[in-house]
């Protein structure tokens, strides 16, 4: 049994799960599934949202690896595929080397190209106007507004701005677009409904949900970290909306 490879595989799987935004219980479970392949050994896995430590005892040796995990990008495909790899491995369908290779492949997997992503971002904003009971005017107005907003979001994210300011400036662009369109183009749409529909895209539903589940599982450190992330994200959207409304009232009205 190649214990070094095994523990490296487990660590890699855990890192990928954390970065993709899985809850800590699942990260630790996945790593435990992988490590339990080793015969005659015991192990400990400790994962928090910023790092992992994993130890494996065999008859004559102890292996310990730790890893500092940075960066976060919600990616459900990665969670799904890593989960499948650990499941296949613990069921004995694949061996440890194949598992490691498959994990490395997952990292480079791109499912949707950037144009489709762009349309999906816009689709969220546009669909929400329908969901909140918007009429035909709201629907048509949401096309240009969501285009401008998502364009701003992609540009700011591409420039590598801090997440807080990406959210804040995107919300400002959105509010300016909605207020401006209403004031100067005279489209008969519901301005508040459009803004609310579009900020749904930026609000921290994912972080909040994961935070709640972490706390329920007893992973209080990670749960509080994620909860703070959710609060900060919500504040960034609120700050953006506030600043934009204030400027618009002072300067243009």
């Amino acid at each position: 049994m190649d214990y070094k490879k095994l523990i490296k595989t487990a660590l890699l799987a855990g890192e990928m799960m954390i970065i993709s935004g899985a809850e800590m219980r699942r990260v630790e479970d996945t790593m435990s599934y992988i490590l339990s392949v080793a015969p005659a050994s015991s192990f400990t896995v400790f994962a928090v949202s910023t790092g992992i430590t994993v130890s494996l005892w065999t008859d004559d040796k102890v292996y310990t690896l730790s890893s500092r995990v940075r960066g976060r990008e919600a990616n459900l495909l990665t969670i799904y595929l890593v989960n499948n790899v650990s499941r296949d491995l613990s069921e004995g369908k694949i061996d440890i080397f194949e598992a490691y290779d498959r994990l490395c492949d997952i990292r480079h997997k791109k499912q949707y190209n950037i144009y489709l992503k762009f349309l999906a971002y816009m689709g969220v904003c546009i669909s929400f106007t329908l969901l909140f009971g918007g009429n035909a005017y709201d629907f048509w107005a949401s096309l240009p507004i969501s285009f401008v907003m998502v364009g701003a979001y992609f540009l700011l994210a591409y420039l590598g701005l801090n997440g807080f300011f990406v959210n804040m400036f995107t919300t400002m662009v959105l509010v300016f677009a909605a207020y401006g369109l209403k004031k100067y183009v005279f489209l008969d749409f519901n301005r508040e409904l459009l803004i609310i529909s579009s900020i749904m895209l930026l609000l921290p539903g994912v972080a909040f949900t994961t935070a709640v589940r972490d706390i329920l599982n007893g992973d209080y450190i990670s749960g509080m970290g994620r909860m703070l992330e959710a609060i900060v994200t919500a504040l960034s959207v609120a700050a953006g909306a506030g600043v934009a409304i204030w400027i618009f009232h002072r300067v243009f009205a």
Partner: protein
Amino acid sequence: MLIKIIGAFLAVASFSIVLNMPKHLIVYAGVVGAFSWLMNLYMGELTDNQVIVAFASTLVVTVLSNLFAKLFKSPVTLFLVSGILPSVPGGAIYYTVYYMLSDDAVYSNRYFAETLQIAGAIALAIFLVESMVRIKRK
């Protein structure tokens, strides 16, 4: 009514693309969203209390997510994080800021409290269903 449900389906389906959902599961994520909004509209008829409405629709999301996760052998997170989106209190957050800037503290505080209450209701609904699921497993 039907347009709203279709809107919910499309919203959650496209949000799941944003989150890089596996292709074959996008439709089911949309179904979760559609049912949660159906519940939301139904409860909206019965009561004006947004907190109860959010609680009920999150219950639907969590139950369906756990069900689909079992059916398709995938983590619950996949369906849960995208399906929860329509229940997020976006309107309450916006109006908190909006009235704060209109110097209307009464409304601003009311919407701020509503934001926190809805967040709490969502958390409680997830807590409830997930702990039920765990009881059954033992």
